[in-house]
């Protein structure tokens, strides 16, 4: 818990520093609104990196932001185990399986497929640069059509040293070390990526039926 206490402010700072990024172009939500899903089946993620812990860690960060957005999220661990029993123990198999059939198994309205494209720590001279990158694709359970997708890359590196103060560099390095040495290392970055992908106006996931903003949120406004 103390580690988490240390990481939270760091993430908070990251979020704050990213708050001023320019709003990306709005995307077309027609297919999403036509499908109007209430529930989302988050299936095991494809791992295109060589970090073996990435898929499990990432999957565990998904339910909270998606549910908070207003959707029923199927229990990810239970779903993973049930799929294994179905012979779909490999995420690649799950992702290539028929979406409608998958949804039928669980009574789900939609499926959220994520693949991990990068999950690396690059050790530089005094710091470590951490990069995570994800692809999110959501498909309608009836038609199998893609109704939402997003790509996210988060790079954690020390802030630019404006004054060139050696003390500031040292502090930044210490914060950096806290992020990269703590276990699980990548949790805050995965959380951050998810939060941004799901909640960013104009590109995020529209508010679901369990969210007060349902039907009137600005994320998906035309």
């Amino acid at each position, binding site marked *: 818990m103390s580690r*988490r*206490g*240390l990481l*939270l*402010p*760091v*993430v*908070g*700072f990251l*979020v*704050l520093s990213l708050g001023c990024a320019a709003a990306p172009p709005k995307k077309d939500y027609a297919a999403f609104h036509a499908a109007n899903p*209430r*529930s989302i089946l988050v299936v095991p993620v494809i791992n295109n990196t060589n970090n073996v*812990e990435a898929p*499990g*860690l990432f*999957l*565990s*960060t998904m*339910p*909270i932001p998606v*549910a*908070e957005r*207003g*959707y*029923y*999220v*199927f*229990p*990810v*661990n*239970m779903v993973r*185990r*049930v799929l*294994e*029993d*179905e012979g779909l123990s490999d995420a690649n198999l799950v992702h290539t399986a028929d979406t409608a059939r998958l949804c039928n*198994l*669980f*009574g*789900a*309205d939609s499926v959220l497929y994520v693949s991990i494209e990068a999950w690396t720590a690059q050790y530089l001279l005094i710091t470590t640069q951490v990069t995570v990158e994800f692809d999110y694709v959501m498909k309608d359970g009836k038609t199998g059509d893609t109704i939402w997708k997003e790509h996210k890359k988060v790079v954690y590196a020390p802030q630019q040293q404006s004054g060139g103060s050696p*003390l500031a560099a*040292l*502090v930044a390095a*210490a*914060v950096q070390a806290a992020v990269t040495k703590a276990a*699980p290392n990548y*949790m805050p970055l995965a*959380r951050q990526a998810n939060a941004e992908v799901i909640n960013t106006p104009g590109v995020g996931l529209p508010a679901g039926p*369990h*969210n007060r903003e349902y039907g009137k949120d600005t994320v998906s406004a035309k």
Partner: protein
Amino acid sequence: MTARRSFFLLLAAFAAAAVGCAPRTAYLWGDYDTALYDHYRNPQDTERYVERLGQIVQKAEVEKDKVPPGLYAEYGYALFEAGRLDEAITYYGKEREQWEESRVFMDKMIRNTRRLKENRPGPAPGGELPPPAGTIPGAAPAGEAK
């Protein structure tokens, strides 16, 4: 001032900033994501996992509409893996009651678990979800009355 001291001061400042704008969540999650992750890393640690999810359920249940979607089901499945089939069925039922979106799935799981309990293995009519591998039918602890 030492670097170490200013480091902590800086952290404190960040913490204050983060707390100031921390969004309130609709549900009470506790340490749900780390509990899931720890179980993923160490699937043998069933007892600890059951205990952690149980604590999250207990805290969330104080306010009924604060129980997150999937939590009852995940807890039920943890109980199931621990061989506590009756309790598993109870929590699948709670998930089913609270979230209508879960009904198809929970109905199947309840059916499969009951069948396992009754020591009658074999495919259910139309039931595509078999009991988890590694669960030997009839291996449920004795005293599962009712």
